[in-house]
């Protein structure tokens, strides 16, 4: 048994008090770690998905909804826009690139996105297997889609109408998987990509009753959204203004809307962070009270330790070690709980085909959290340790137990 071992035994001599302190500290740490781990992954994921997009254009509606639907693929789109708008914007000298997105179908909750190969290039998507789509009804599947649904190049699947899981199946117009993407930790992982023509083909086949209908639908072809890249910074002033002036068109600047989104979410995160800090603070006060009581209750034990030859600083070290045990256990439990909760959230989000969050993700903030908890516990132990140093050994050894 070492001094640390003795501190451990003293700690568990009052198991209920130790358990309460541990619970308070570990819950505070867990809440903080959960916020740090999830926050960092969500922010990283969203920033990654926003990279390279200067403007999102879609049907009139909420700009934030446009971003959520067109960039993060988390919300339903505001509607469709005519194909002519794509041609017009492509002809605008201020616009360097227009990537059309045609949404509307899904595969067991994963969205089928009709687009151009530029969309792959936007996220530097790499093929892990097979090739990119060339002809209509050829599809490339993202990493998560391929893994979850077990899709391989050469296999066929039928999309279903709508973005939910219970849409009507387009069984008569099946897609063929021609490629599988490597993991990119971006939105591509949870998408099924195909040409815009594929989406048109499926819907024209589904909705047209005869050849005349098909021709009419061909003439009214639409896309859901467009992702724009500017040629010059000046475009940020003129292009959105021009878009918003058009009938049925709405622009959304990702930088502005994501900042608005983070601000809105940030209030909730701040409240949770404050609550976590409060829990850690209450834990520290609880450790302080527990150690003060422990020193008071254990004064004869401490006096005996002095009698056996321990210098006063050794008693102080014993009290500090007890606080260290508590804080180390509290942070270890809190880290495990925080990361575990993040993993549970990750599983829930994966079931909803949403953002990727994993439990085994570490942030530098966690290190600061650990340092803060240990420092708080040490600070809480300082006064009890001082009391231990100043024990009147002679008096205490005559005190009845």
């Amino acid at each position, binding site marked *: 048994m070492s001094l640390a071992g003795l501190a451990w035994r003293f700690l568990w001599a009052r198991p209920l008090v130790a358990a309460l302190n541990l619970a308070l500290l570990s819950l505070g740490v867990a809440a903080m770690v959960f916020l740090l781990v999830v926050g960092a992954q969500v922010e990283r994921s969203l920033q990654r998905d926003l990279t390279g997009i200067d403007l999102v254009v879609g049907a009139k509606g909420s700009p934030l909804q446009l971003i959520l639907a067109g960039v993060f693929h988390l919300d339903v789109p505001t509607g469709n826009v005519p194909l002519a708008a794509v041609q017009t914007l492509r002809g605008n000298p201020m616009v360097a690139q227009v990537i059309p997105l045609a949404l509307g179908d899904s595969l067991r909750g994963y969205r089928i996105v009709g687009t151009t190969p530029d969309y792959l290039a936007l996220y530097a998507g790499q093929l892990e297997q097979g090739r990119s789509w060339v002809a209509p009804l050829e599809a490339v599947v993202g990493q998560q889609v391929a893994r979850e649904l077990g899709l391989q190049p050469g296999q066929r699947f039928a999309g279903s109408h709508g973005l939910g899981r219970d849409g009507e199946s387009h069984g008569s117009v099946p897609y063929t998987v021609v490629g599988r993407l490597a993991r990119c930790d971006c939105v591509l992982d949870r998408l099924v990509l195909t040409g815009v023509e594929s989406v048109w083909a499926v819907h024209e086949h589904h909705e047209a009753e005869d050849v005349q209908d098909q021709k009419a639908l061909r003439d009214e072809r639409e896309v859901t959204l467009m992702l724009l890249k500017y040629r010059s910074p000046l475009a940020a002033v003129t292009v959105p203004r021009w878009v918003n002036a058009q009938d049925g068109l709405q622009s959304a600047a990702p930088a502005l809307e994501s900042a608005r989104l983070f601000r809105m979410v940030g209030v909730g995160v701040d409240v949770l962070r404050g609550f976590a800090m409060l829990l850690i603070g209450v834990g520290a006060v609880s450790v302080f009270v527990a150690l003060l009581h422990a020193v008071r209750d254990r004064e004869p034990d401490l006096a005996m330790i002095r009698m056996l030859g321990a210098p006063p600083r050794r008693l102080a070290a014993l009290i500090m070690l007890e606080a260290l045990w508590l804080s180390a256990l509290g942070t270890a439990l809190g880290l495990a709980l925080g990361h575990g909760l993040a993993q549970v959230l990750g599983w829930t989000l994966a079931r909803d085909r949403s953002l990727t969050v994993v439990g085994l993700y570490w942030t530098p903030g966690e290190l600061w959290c650990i340092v803060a908890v240990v420092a708080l516990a040490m600070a809480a132990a300082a006064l009890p340790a001082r009391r231990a140093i100043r024990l009147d*050994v002679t008096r205490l050894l*005559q005190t009845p137990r």
Partner: protein
Amino acid sequence: MLSLRGLSYRYPAGPALVFPDFEAPAGARVLLSGPSGSGKSTLIALCAGLLAPQQGALRVAGQDLSAMTAAQRDAWRGATLGVVPQRLHLSAGLTVLDNLAMSFVSVGMPVDRSRLEMLLGELDIGALAGRRPHQLSVGQAQRVALARALVRQPTMLLVDEPTANLDDEAIAAVLQLLERTARHVNATLLIATHDARVAQSLPEAKLLRLTRPTAEVVA
């Protein structure tokens, strides 16, 4: 050995406690007696190095305690002294074995388990190693406290009122045990007591009798 020469100690706002000159050789048995307030506890604290002598000389186990710093007295106490306090003060949260191990832990030494096991066997308390103090009888607890005092092979054993609340038979057993163990490790044995039966049981012991100080005006 134990040597007191012109030793006195005064608590703040209290009368000076003046101790008689006294000499006892190494391995001697010494009985410290005197009425309440005569300074028995103070002399034990001085002999244990918990208090620093203010006047005079105090030599315990060959060391002049008046010439040592507090840190030196702490180290010396751990290496030289075995103490059995009146209330025993076994730690309630620890097992018997851990209570004994505390003697090593207190001075930062690795626990010598073979020494602990040997002591437990010698004092016939080997079967109690895993028990907690509240599971022990008074006699068993006294043996454990004695074992704790002997763990580091002291050259001086300080025992405070070892016979309090014991009947005649138990007193004889405790004194016999103290006498036997002190002889076994060749330690000087200092027993603070006001029980006349102790003196009768240890007729060869040297008596160090203290008297209550007379009242004096403190300037």
